[in-house]
């Protein structure tokens, strides 16, 4: 299956699954005993945060792979991952803020999790900014890799912040023995994670492919040629594909 078909399959499945999530979240599941109607935000907020983490994870993996192999396709993937992570980190902050207003009576708190998530957002924006600085493709990839790896260090801090510090943010919902969510609420929440992961995969393929085409158009395939030379020198392999086939 080529990446264009994979991207479309993930997009279609993602839209269908998220459609089901919206119907379940807004019309089928009932209000919560404690949170009332605002529990419906839980079908979006944790999934957007999960997708933001996934974006940083993919970008960090691709950045390390680029640093080891110097294959420019890894940099294209890293650029795509950190960009999508920035979008989903923004959405996690926005949905959290909208949920916080009626439940905490505040749009914003300098809580450890919210603060560390905000830091992740600015690190993602920083990575995207250094990718646009003047310089060669290699300089861009190296600068981006450094900032992406800094962002990746922040992810476990965000995740464990509710355990490490006194936090207003509620603790972990799923990864605990006495789980506080079950039944249709749990199913809808898990389904939203699946749906957002599918959409994330579709966007990741699309954006990585676009990054490559933009490099090819701007540098006449120079980056790919340099990448292939390096791959040959290190015993790896690199391939060039045409638009529409990858």
């Amino acid at each position: 299956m080529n990446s264009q078909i994979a991207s479309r399959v993930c997009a279609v499945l993602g839209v269908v699954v998220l459609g089901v999530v919206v119907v379940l979240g807004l019309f089928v599941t009932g209000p919560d005993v404690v949170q009332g109607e605002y529990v419906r935000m839980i079908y979006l907020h944790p999934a957007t945060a999960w997708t933001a983490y996934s974006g940083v994870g993919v970008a960090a993996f691709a950045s390390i792979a680029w640093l080891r192999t110097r294959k420019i396709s890894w940099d294209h993937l890293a650029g795509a991952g950190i960009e999508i992570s920035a979008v989903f980190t923004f959405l996690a902050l926005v949905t959290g803020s909208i949920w916080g207003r009626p439940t905490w009576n505040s749009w914003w708190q300098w809580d450890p999790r919210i603060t560390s998530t905000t830091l992740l957002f600015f690190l993602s924006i920083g990575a995207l900014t250094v990718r646009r600085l003047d310089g060669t493709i290699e300089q861009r990839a190296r600068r981006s890799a450094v900032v992406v790896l800094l962002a990746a260090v922040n992810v476990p801090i965000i995740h464990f912040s509710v355990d490490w510090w006194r936090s207003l943010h509620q603790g972990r919902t799923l990864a605990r023995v006495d789980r506080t969510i079950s039944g249709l609420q749990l199913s809808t929440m898990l389904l939203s994670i699946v749906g957002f992961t599918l959409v994330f995969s579709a966007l990741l393929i699309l954006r990585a492919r676009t990054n490559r085409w933009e490099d090819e158009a701007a540098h006449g395939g120079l980056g790919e040629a340099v990448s292939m030379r390096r791959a040959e020198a290190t015993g790896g392999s690199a391939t060039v594909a045409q638009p529409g086939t990858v």
Partner: protein
Amino acid sequence: MGYVAAGYLAVFGTLGAYTGWAITKSRRAAAQVLASQPPPGEER
């Protein structure tokens, strides 16, 4: 329900806008690559 509706609109509105922008950018980049390639039978 106002806050909930605002949350759902924010998420799916932002995702829709970002996806639309990504597709447009992808099509533009593909067209640029195709335009930069020589016609069949010609050296670049």
